[in-house]
């Protein structure tokens, strides 16, 4: 087997990379794909918490790279899907504890056993970023519709184009109300600037926080808007042609006009 290794990256921190990695991983696993998630954020491990797997960690990425254990010993099996696994980050090492070359070898090895290798990239564009990207064949860039994250996304897209080619874009934390008020960049504004292919839009949703508290990512919650958005993104990754819907689901022009006038 030769799976797809995808890095989830952003430049800017706190825009939703780890959340996206967890949700895409679970979503792909739900479609019966064999998936492994690599927490590339050495020193600031997070993905285990979001996935609800923090109590099962024995070994981590740096242990594997240093030969202190076998890869399969370090893989934490998901509670919900037996064919989904997490390779946790070390909490005590530095980004420099591994090299891009080692990451490349590790990803190549994992691709033999898994359909998807998703790599959660740390913030920044230094060594941790280079390591995470080195293991990947494709990239997903995530941004929120704010000035600084879009600027950083542009920088990262430029860097990625030199190695992996054009990445796909996820716009996270979009708020329909703010867009309609004219106080948030909308999807077209973001695409005008970044000029890459849009993979999906995830709305601002309190359920993401609840999901984080529970260790049960939103994609598992069919009722949540953000969970549904991640579900659609997963299908697009699998090659399905799923249209990107209006954010509020009932946002026809007349509806919006009606809302506008009733507000005045």
């Amino acid at each position: 087997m030769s799976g797809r290794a995808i890095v989830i990256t952003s430049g800017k921190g706190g825009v939703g990379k780890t959340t996206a990695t967890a949700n895409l991983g679970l979503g792909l696993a739900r479609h019966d794909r064999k998936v492994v998630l690599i927490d590339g954020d050495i020193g600031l491990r997070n993905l285990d918490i979001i996935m609800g797997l923090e109590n099962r960690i024995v070994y981590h990425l740096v242990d594997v790279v240093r030969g202190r254990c076998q890869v399969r010993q370090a893989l934490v099996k998901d509670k919900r899907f037996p064919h989904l696994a997490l390779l946790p980050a070390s909490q005590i090492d530095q980004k420099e504890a591994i090299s891009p070359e080692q990451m490349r070898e590790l990803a190549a090895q994992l691709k033999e056993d898994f359909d998807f290798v998703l790599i959660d990239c740390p913030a920044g564009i230094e060594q941790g970023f280079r390591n995470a990207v080195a293991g990947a064949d494709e990239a997903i860039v995530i941004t929120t519709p704010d000035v600084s994250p879009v600027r950083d996304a542009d920088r990262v897209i430029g860097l990625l184009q030199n190695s992996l080619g054009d990445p796909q874009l996820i716009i996270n934390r979009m708020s329909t109300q703010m867009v309609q008020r004219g106080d948030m960049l909308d999807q077209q504004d973001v695409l005008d600037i970044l000029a890459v292919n849009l993979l999906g839009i995830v709305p601002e949703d309190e359920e993401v926080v609840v999901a984080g508290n529970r260790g049960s990512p939103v994609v598992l919650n069919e009722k949540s808007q953000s969970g549904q958005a991640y579900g659609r993104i997963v299908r697009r990754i699998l090659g399905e042609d799923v249209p990107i819907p209006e954010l509020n689901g009932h946002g026809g022009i007349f509806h919006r006009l009606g809302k506008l006038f009733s507000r005045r």
Partner: protein
Amino acid sequence: MAWGTFVQRLLGNKGSAGLAKDRLQVVVMYDRLGLSPEQMAALRKDIMETISRHVAIDSERVKIDFLPTPAEVTITAPVRRGRTRGEEPKQQAG
């Protein structure tokens, strides 16, 4: 621009999104070029000098635009009439 945004702007509610986009376009353009504002000014001066060496241009009206997407540089330099390369400007008689 979404319809909602468009309608808002028609109604005169500007919001901050337009400003955000304008600022982003400028900042992203400089990021992509990897040039500081000082380097940009130097580039502008060099371009004007180079063109003026061959063609008489109206230096007041030279425009150098860096367009972000797709990235391109356009230079607009109005050429003055009545003078070709290598010739001295002729005085109009009368």
